[in-house]
């Protein structure tokens, strides 16, 4: 299914298609053709949310940059990180983005079980990521290098933890979407939601790449 045939005859908010001069436009909302289709509006709005989320992360990145060397006599980045675990985490998350893409493709073909299966795989990989991160955190806390130890560890735990929390919320969302797709089928609004979810999931990947580079790689080797 493509977006165009979806909204030619069904536009839930019924705007811009029968309003002026018999418009049946595929308008993108730049003024000439009237309001854009619901799909574009939803996607666009969610993109803007993602941008705002990036802004929030950039505040945490900036904080990390400021506090990186303020170790208060405690350990620095190069003493702490276990790169094997981090590589596993990264692998799991990047792979989950790939399976998320496969999920979107199956959804476009409206095949229920393959879609659900890829959702499940995405979720499991995401869960693996959260589990590994949680284990790393627990380990650091247990050796006395928790976030209370120094400004550096505070910033580290917050930046990485904020990403981890996003992934966890994403898992909750994914679970909810699996149930929705199962019970409600590939209804248009549900497809929009899955679309937003996959945008979210890929965005978290981008953030993770930044964390992996700036925190872990530069932290250990820089």
């Amino acid at each position, binding site marked *: 299914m493509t977006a165009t045939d979806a909204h030619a005859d069904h536009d*839930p*908010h*019924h*705007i*811009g298609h*029968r*309003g*002026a*001069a018999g*418009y049946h*436009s595929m*308008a*993108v*909302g*730049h*003024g*000439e*053709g*009237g*309001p*854009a289709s619901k799909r*574009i*509006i939803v996607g*666009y*709005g969610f993109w*803007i*949310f993602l*941008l*705002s*989320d990036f*802004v*929030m992360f950039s*505040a*945490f990145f*900036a*904080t990390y940059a*400021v*506090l990186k060397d*303020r*170790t*208060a006599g405690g350990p620095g980045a190069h003493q702490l990180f276990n790169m094997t675990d981090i590589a596993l985490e990264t692998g799991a998350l990047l792979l989950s983005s790939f399976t998320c893409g496969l999920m979107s493709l199956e959804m476009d073909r409206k095949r229920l079980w393959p879609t659900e299966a890829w959702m499940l795989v995405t979720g499991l990989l995401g869960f693996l990521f959260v589990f590994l991160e949680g284990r790393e955190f627990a380990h650091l806390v247990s050796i006395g290098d928790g*976030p*209370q*130890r*120094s*400004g*550096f560890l*505070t*910033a580290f*735990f*917050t930046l990485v933890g904020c990403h981890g929390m996003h992934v966890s919320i994403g898992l*909750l969302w994914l679970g*909810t979407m699996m149930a*929705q797709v199962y*019970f*409600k089928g590939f209804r248009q*609004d549900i497809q929009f*939601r899955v679309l937003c979810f996959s945008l979210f999931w890929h965005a978290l990947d981008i953030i993770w790449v930044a964390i992996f580079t700036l925190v872990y790689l530069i932290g250990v080797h820089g």
Partner: protein
Amino acid sequence: MKLLGKLDWSAIPFDQPIPLAAGALVIVVILGVVALIFAKGWAPYIWNEWICSVDHKRIGVMYCSLAMVMLVRGFIDALMMRTQQSVAFHSGGYLPPEHYDQIFSAHGTIMIFFVAMPFVIGLMNFVVPLQLGVRDVAFPTLNSVALWLTAAGVLLVNMSLVVGEFSRVGWLPYPPLSELTYSPGVGVDYYCWALEISGIGTLAGGINLVTTILKMRAPGLSYTRMPIFCWTALASNLMIIAAFPVLTATLAMLLLDRYLGFHFFTNTMGGNQMMFMNLIWIWGHPEVYILVLPAFGVYSEVVSTFSGKPLFGYRSMIVATMAICIISFLVWLHHFFTMGPGGDVNGVFGIASMIIAVPTGVKIFNWLFTMYGGTVRFRVPMLWSIAFMITFVIGGMTGVMLAIPPADFILHNNLFLVAHFHNVIIPGVLFAAFAGYVYWFPKAFGFKLDEGWGKAAFWFWVIGFYLAFMPLYVMGLEGMPRRMQSYDVPQWQPWAHVATVGALSIMCGIACMVIQLVVSIRNREQLRDDYGDPWDGRTLEWITPSPPPEFNFAVMPNVTGEEAYWGLKEAAREQQRITRPVPEYEDLEMPRNSPTGFVCAFFAVMMGFALIWHIWWLLVLGFIGAYATLVVFAWRDLHERIIPKEEVARIDLENRARRNLALQEGRV
């Protein structure tokens, strides 16, 4: 573990009569209103048509109402501060420090976050879709969630009056004073959680409006045909999206410091308090323009309408607006020249701050030239606009003074600064809110506000403003720091008295506004706006009936130039009838109302309260509740409601008939 966390009877200020009485009064009023609603049988109407409403116009009205109620609360705080400073020479006055400090913190917090913000957001919500010629916003239910999350923040702030305390560290919680060591009470927690919750609401509202403006406009309404208010709304909401996440993050860091012993801003263990100031002002300076840009939009609409002319230099205004939008992110450091960053840094940020004065000055001149050659009608919104132009340039001047680092070294953080930002925010934002309130009130409710009481309110406010804030400039030059609960410098006191008189005059202004509303409701038949265009307007909102139907436009207007409505009206005037042919009406689908926003906010308050008082089971309960609410909403099968074409036709034809009559009688 205690079931109620930190909460016990010592939280209720039995020893402090003022907050206790105020709190009791608020509770009585709320209960009274609720009782009245139930007694009169209005409850289903209020619930279905307002609380659950996802109509952008009603949401806008509720935002503005919330702002006006909170204006009274914030103003009472101001009055207490002014009277305290009047009497606190060589004495403690009548407010002890721990109470006075809460009052100025609450005053600033409330006035910015819960008066200026909701007022401006309310006006944008009400007006923007109408001016864009569309039936709805991009995300109506999200919009409702945004409103109710703001209300949740309001509730938490007011709760602190009776349960516990409010923040005592000022409207921005500078650490380390706001850290647990120096502020062990729950005040800062109330502040942070209230703003975290309402900040998420603001962000959601911003996403909604940006998407609406960029992706939903009537056919033909290209960027260079958009009314200037829509442009300023776009700029403002873009800034919300770029700035509010930083506030969320910054307050989250402070909360982590306070709750879990992190070291973002602490004195010890590698914390860095200067980082807080940078972060908070990276949000805080754009915040000023988030408020003031839509206000400039209101003035642009009002000045143009009441001068009977299109806005002078429309494109120049767009450039100026977007220039301010961008530059405002590059000036945050001028809030702390006194941190000692050195001449280069201070010089750069000083100049950047001054550069903002250029597009702002251009705007003032453009309004001036809009009046030039026009036919100026001194109705209440126009009076507010002219008072703004005169007063704001003074505030702008003192602003540029403060942007010169060495001048700031001597004026920073004293009453000169306080006078300056009131001198820009009151005329810049509040006067615009009042102008917009009078200007769009007939559109929202179908009748105009009483002119006489409106003018009385205007004069009390303007005179009160000058009396209240000009003395603060003098006191600042005399070296009086801000936030002084008591003092022993005799020469400050006479000026404090003058400022108190000014505050009393503003109180009369507020009273006049209340009377104006009551009188206008009583005389609504005489003040009726029967065909929807009471001010001879120029933009699309005036093509709709007053109040507009839920669907705004029976058919979507086809825009062919700037000032879409004015062109149609000119043609209609010539022919003395509406020239647009009667369209073929069709069934319309509008979004269904939903209690999602209200219920979400209920659980948000629950979670906020639980966090403030460390009641962890309640937090879990609140989270489950909020999640369940979203799932229930997501499971909904019917999103739209059909409005039959007969109904659409009836409403539109009736309005056409009224307009035709008015045209024939030459009233348009």
